[in-house]
């Protein structure tokens, strides 16, 4: 049975069909929570709140997007609310904008780390630097970066999930990437010195 058939059955009150939908998507939703919050408790909260909300809102689901996209939307809205309460100091939108406009002086000379011995995907320190930088992105940038660049959702899908225009999504992805690259460049520069 495909996703839409299961959705139709679940909407008609077939609880087994809803559980089938849960089974097919729960690992993805839980791991999305891990990426947003980096702790199992908050990921478990996100998982539970997403499915409870989905079950309660199922009669209103019109099938304009896929069930998974709809779930991502519920999960991301929950994550945004929670991330906004985090106490980690975030980079300002102005700084992100200036970086993308090339107004920050450190973007004038790009540091070449193509041959840098510290560049390796197994370098745990490098991953930690990047992870910390992702966590300092403002929530509305962090969620987009995770959905698009980590989860691999298309710009169009992210736009539907967040009800934001495609140009807005593109701008935020671009600014986030430049900021994260700068943070890694700083790390490589320190290592060189």
């Amino acid at each position: 049975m495909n996703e839409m058939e299961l959705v139709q059955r679940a909407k008609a009150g077939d609880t087994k069909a809803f559980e089938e939908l849960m089974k097919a998507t729960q690992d993805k939703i839980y791991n999305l929570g891990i990426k947003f919050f980096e702790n199992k408790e908050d990921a478990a909260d996100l998982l539970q709140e997403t499915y409870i909300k989905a079950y309660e809102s199922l009669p209103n689901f019109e099938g304009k997007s896929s069930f998974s996209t709809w779930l991502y939307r519920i999960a991301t809205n929950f994550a945004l609310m929670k991330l906004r309460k985090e106490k980690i100091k975030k980079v300002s939108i102005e700084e992100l904008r200036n970086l993308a406009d090339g107004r920050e002086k450190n973007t004038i000379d790009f540091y070449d780390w193509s041959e840098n011995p510290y560049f390796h995907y197994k370098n745990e320190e490098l991953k930690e630097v990047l992870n910390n930088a992702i966590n300092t992105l403002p929530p509305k940038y962090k969620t987009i970066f995770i959905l698009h660049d980590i989860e691999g959702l298309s710009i169009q899908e992210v736009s539907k999930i967040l009800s934001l225009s495609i140009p807005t999504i593109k701008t935020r992805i671009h600014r986030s990437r430049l900021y994260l690259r700068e943070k890694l460049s700083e790390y490589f520069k320190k290592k060189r010195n």
Partner: protein
Amino acid sequence: MNCREIMKHISDYIDKEMEETLKEVFEQHIRICKRCRINLDSIEKTLLISKFIYKEEKIPKNVKKTLYYRIKMRYKR
């Protein structure tokens, strides 16, 4: 296309959201401009590293149990 324009379009290029003619001009510039090549390369490498940060986690059994219990409670309403 100058370096500033390359910077502006670099994410479109990475996301394959660029029109074919613009893409050709972009790639032509990248071939001759070391600075923009470094710019593109370091962003692509940042994205590569980001793919290795998170490990897939299994949902703990007790979390799954609570989830199904809470959902089942709603069936009864």
